């Protein structure tokens, strides 16, 4: 009797889960599989051609000068974006944690950029970093530098191939460091005052308190922030579209932008799918260890 009811409950549970399992199965994993299949096909015109060509598209891609530049750009962007956002976010959190007056006000200001979409951020920074010219006059940041007598610091920003993607990273840091601040602030508030006191009593300097007590305790938050920022960074597309486009000599180009162009402009659907798979692998390199780590932790608990 009891067993039967258990079975019935199980069935209901199963039925309730089934729609989402099917939907996720088809629309996430099914399409990932499909993209993988296309990436090994010969689909290089509008009309699908599913002839199997193995890893040819991938070899070609890694030999492609534009893709090589894209990977380099992505590495530079990710490095700058992660370190910049974490450092500035942490600094802001520490400052706010000092029980400053009007904390709520500053917290809101720092968090606001995150409520914008990357498209808006991109358009704003596109104007801010517009280089201008001697004939038409400076605008944005260059104008500001000129006005405060730091004209020698003027730059071509994203229009200068030597700067390129680094300028885009600045905009991304501006947007996301407030979010990192919020995460760290929550973490800092979770650290009991007694721990700091104990460290201070033991003769630790303020620097040592942060270095040996607080930072280690904040490690899970740092890890979470790295995961979140990392996958945003690897997939970055909208910010590039709104702010710079591929840029002179592809100095602002990223794999996701190349994917869109090669698929829908050059009709190389197989090559586009190959880029998608590479992006997926890169993101999973970041996410999977984290998943394993958190699953293990849950098991331990």
């Amino acid at each position, binding site marked *: 009797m009891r067993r039967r009811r258990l079975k019935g409950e199980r069935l209901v549970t199963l039925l309730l889960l089934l729609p989402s399992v099917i939907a996720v199965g088809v629309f996430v994993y099914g399409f990932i599989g499909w993209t993988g299949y296309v990436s090994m096909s010969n689909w290089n015109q509008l009309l699908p051609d599913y002839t199997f060509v193995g890893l040819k598209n991938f070899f070609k891609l890694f030999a492609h000068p534009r893709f090589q530049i894209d990977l380099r750009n992505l590495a530079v962007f990710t490095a700058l974006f992660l370190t910049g956002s974490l450092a500035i976010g942490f600094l802001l959190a520490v400052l706010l944690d000092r029980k400053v007056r009007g904390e709520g006000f500053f917290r809101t200001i720092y968090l606001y950029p995150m409520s914008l979409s990357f498209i808006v951020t991109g358009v704003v920074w596109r104007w801010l970093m517009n280089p201008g010219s001697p004939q*038409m006059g400076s605008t944005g940041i260059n104008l500001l530098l000129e006005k405060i007598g730091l004209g020698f610091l003027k730059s071509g920003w994203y229009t200068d191939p030597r700067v390129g993607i680094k300028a885009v990273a600045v905009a991304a840091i501006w947007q996301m460091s407030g979010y990192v601040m919020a995460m760290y602030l929550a973490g800092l508030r979770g650290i009991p005052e007694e721990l700091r006191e104990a460290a201070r009593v033991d003769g630790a300097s303020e620097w040592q308190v942060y270095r040996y007590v607080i930072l280690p305790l904040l490690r899970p938050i740092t890890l979470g922030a790295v995961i979140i920022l990392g996958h945003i960074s690897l997939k970055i597309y909208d910010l590039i579209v709104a702010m710079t486009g591929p840029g002179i000599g592809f100095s602002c180009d990223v794999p996701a932008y190349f994917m869109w162009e*090669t698929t829908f402009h050059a009709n190389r659907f197989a090559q586009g799918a190959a880029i998608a798979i590479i992006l997926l692998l890169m993101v999973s390199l970041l996410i999977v260890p984290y998943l394993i780590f958190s699953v293990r932790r849950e098991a331990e608990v």
Partner: protein
Amino acid sequence: MWRKSYLVGLLAVVLLSWLGWGQAGHEYVVPATTTLKAIAQETLGDAAYAPAVMRATNAKSLADPTYLKIRTLDMEIPEGAKLWIPERVWAEAFMAFWDPNRPEDLFGGGKLVVGSWWTAGGEAEGLNALFEIYDEYYPDVQIVNATIAGGAGFVFRAVIKPRLIAGDPPDTFQLHAGLEVEGYSPETYLTPLDELFEIMGWTEVLPKDLLDLLLYKGHFWGVPVNIHRANVLWYDKAIFDKYGITPPENWDEFFAICEKLKAEGVVPFVMGNAGGWEAAHLFETILISTMGAEGYKGLWTGETPWTSAGVTEALEILKKILDYVNPDYAALSWDGAGEYLIAHKGAMMIMGDWTNGWFMAKGYEDYGWAPVPDTGGIFDALSDTFCLPKRAPNPINALGWLMVCGSKEGQIAFNTRKGSIPARTDLTAAEKAQFNPYLRSCMDDFARDAIVPSVIHGAAAIESWVTDFKDAVNLFLATKDVAGTQRALVEAAEAALAAMKG
């Protein structure tokens, strides 16, 4: 008394003109009960045109209920019923494109979804002019203007492709004349329009160069509405007058002017490249100047090798031009760069002749034009066409649209607003007079010059090649590596020519 008859007369004129609106043809009152076939036989000389009469009459009856609503092809037509007999060419075209398995097409009405990237300024006005004409002829059809903005159609094309594959295309959409059509796999996704060209007599009134461009795999896939010229050098007259400069005819003169203006603190040459294609557009016109018309055309057919000295020379010229451009070119689109001319801060710019329409819209009149240096007598052409997707939901409505696009009336209304020249060459002197001075000079040049197809605007090469070409030029802007870029161009050509053969 005279007043009354005047009023009656006026009323009659209004009424007649109102009746005259609508698809070309004439009204027909049935003298004695008969069949549709007999009527078609009597009025159009062929009983097989009965479906065309049915469609035309039904379309009419949607706007004017005094016309008979014909429910089936073999319905008995009662005495005194009012029918609309379409023009013979229309009936012919209808019969050529109507699928007998689609009886729903015999009832008129429905939608016409027109896809294009004409969203702003003169382009949008031109498109609206076409819509107005279409609406006069087919008041029963609801027009849906499905535009997607984005320079030179790069975004639009990316959106339309998945829709074609998915079998959900608009009824008709914009397409550059030339090899761009390859990117749509037309044999699978588009309807060949050869019969329509023949019935409408377009092969007689369109220039031969354009017809050659339109043919892909032996078929016509789109109806051209206009022609643009890509190799135009625009200059600010105020600056040229101030420094006593005349438009350069060759690159030596061009660079002499650049030197002079640079010393004066004026930007000698302005360009934009925010869209990613503008620099490639410039390079294309330089290629024409160094390779000549035949040599340039041969580059895209495999007859001229990309290792030619002319290609090297073109890259050297582009490299040299980069010394004289506005420093913010990467942040500007072509129209943003045009602001330099309007402000009299920049002297010259190379862009297609849509610039003319943009200058006019900006109220800027102080500009002059000349062919790009060393390309006098050559016309780098591109043309916009409209096509008929195989799975268009309302193919007969789209057919009417294509006829409007190909008509003289449509082309004049469209091009005077868009700022391009009609694709048809049978305009009378009075009709030509409706165009502005630039366009009139452009028409003369088109009739006289050697015509070459533009590559960046879809005429000369398949899309994958265009992308590689564009990418090579974009990379060159940063590296300025002549030999490496030429090697990349050679490789792109080899791959594309192999793909075209396979």
